């Protein structure tokens, strides 16, 4: 079966896209024995660094195993193989490293591979946009990028169960291509008025109007960095508004914990920690998130690319 392609995307920055992407990848690999390919499309490279570690990302960058290199080749008109940019075995979970049998009963332990990004990605993208600029068709760079991405994904064949795109905020060319190619979209969200407005703008102006890819059944929202104290009645109203405006919200939510952010970073490529140590008080929520995402992905009809 071809991989299910999921975009972790939103208009707003700082809502936990990278952390959510990493949590989903870890949970699917560990609990469901899944082969996961995580593609970081964000020049902030937070997800890349959290997964590979700072020095691991430097090594990947030196070996040209980055999405930046791939886009840079495309911008220069050089043939580039997406598969060749993959770093394998980047999961920092001790259980996965030890080959623990997945809890789902999958006969094989899962794994995570990654195509990391670097801070120069946006500049490579701009060169790509320039190359494919068409004054009569502003969507041309996106269409070209989507075609390249789909070709690259097809070549990955059945090697992965899931391809997860960690998108940057808003609609960069790569993000547009990933959203166009994805089977499903997951949007992390804070329960505050600005974030809710941003969610609606993301769907209405981006996914519906511009990209024409929105489908209620292919889009899920997850509340992240949830704070239990303060503004309870306002939050209830906001959450009702989200439901009433046509979004489907996952039951899982990720609480705001200092530990999760502080310890989620990996200190070296040969550093490993247990799932429980990595996620601390959020461990059960992360496990539940993986289960929900697996169920969501299973129901997604295959997109004809």
């Amino acid at each position, binding site marked *: 079966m071809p991989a299910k392609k999921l975009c972790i995307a939103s208009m707003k920055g700082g809502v936990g896209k990278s952390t959510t992407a990493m949590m989903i990848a870890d949970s699917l690999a560990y609990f469901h024995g899944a082969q996961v390919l995580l593609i970081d499309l964000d020049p902030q490279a937070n997800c890349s660094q959290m997964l590979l570690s700072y020095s691991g990302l430097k090594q990947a960058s030196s070996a040209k195993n980055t999405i930046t290199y791939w886009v840079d080749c495309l911008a220069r008109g050089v043939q580039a193989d997406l598969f060749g940019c993959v770093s394998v075995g980047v999961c920092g979970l001790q259980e996965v490293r030890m080959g623990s049998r997945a809890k789902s009963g999958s006969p094989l332990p899962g794994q995570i591979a990654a195509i990391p990004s670097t801070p120069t990605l946006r500049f490579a993208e701009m060169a790509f946009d320039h190359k494919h600029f068409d004054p009569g068709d502003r969507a041309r760079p996106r269409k070209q990028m989507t075609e390249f991405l789909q070709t690259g994904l097809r070549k990955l064949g059945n090697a992965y169960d899931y391809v997860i795109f960690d998108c940057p905020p808003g609609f960069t060319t790569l993000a547009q291509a990933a959203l166009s190619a994805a089977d499903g979209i997951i949007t992390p969200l804070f329960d505050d008025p600005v974030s809710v407005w941003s969610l609606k703008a993301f769907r209405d102006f981006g996914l519906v109007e511009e990209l024409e890819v929105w489908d209620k059944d292919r889009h899920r929202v997850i509340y992240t960095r949830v704070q239990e104290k303060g503004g309870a009645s306002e939050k209830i109203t906001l959450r009702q508004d989200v439901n009433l405006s046509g979004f489907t919200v996952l039951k899982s939510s990720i609480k705001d914990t200092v530990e999760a952010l502080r*310890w989620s970073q990996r200190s070296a490529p040969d550093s490993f*920690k247990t799932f429980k140590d990595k996620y601390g008080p959020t461990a059960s929520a992360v496990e539940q998130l993986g289960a929900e995402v697996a169920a969501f992905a299973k129901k997604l009809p295959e997109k004809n690319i």
Partner: protein
Amino acid sequence: MNDDNHERVAPEVALDRFLTAIKNQADIDPAFRNNLLLALGVTVVFDGENDLANVAPHIVAAHKDELSFRAIYGRLPVAKLRSVLTKSGLATKSDLTGKSQDDILDMLWGRAVSRAEERGLRVG
């Protein structure tokens, strides 16, 4: 005291109090004292370099060469070394399983340098 309940003091008195508070804290807190000394950015020779082991390792790595770094941390017992690595988030318990003191010291140096580079304290 003025109307706002704030004491009015001369600038030099205020500065003196501020510096005294820092000095007093430095006297009782070796890690704080050594952080101050490292922050001076010059070569400072002082007694008790062992205390540098209480400073975050990546800060020491940013200011010391490998030999000095190893001399500082090499004096520590293995249990303390392990504690330095785990408390600073440079290693997990799993990373340290079955490692000798030399292995741990290598790990500490390598990862402290990497973090110093990551945080922009040292050029890679």
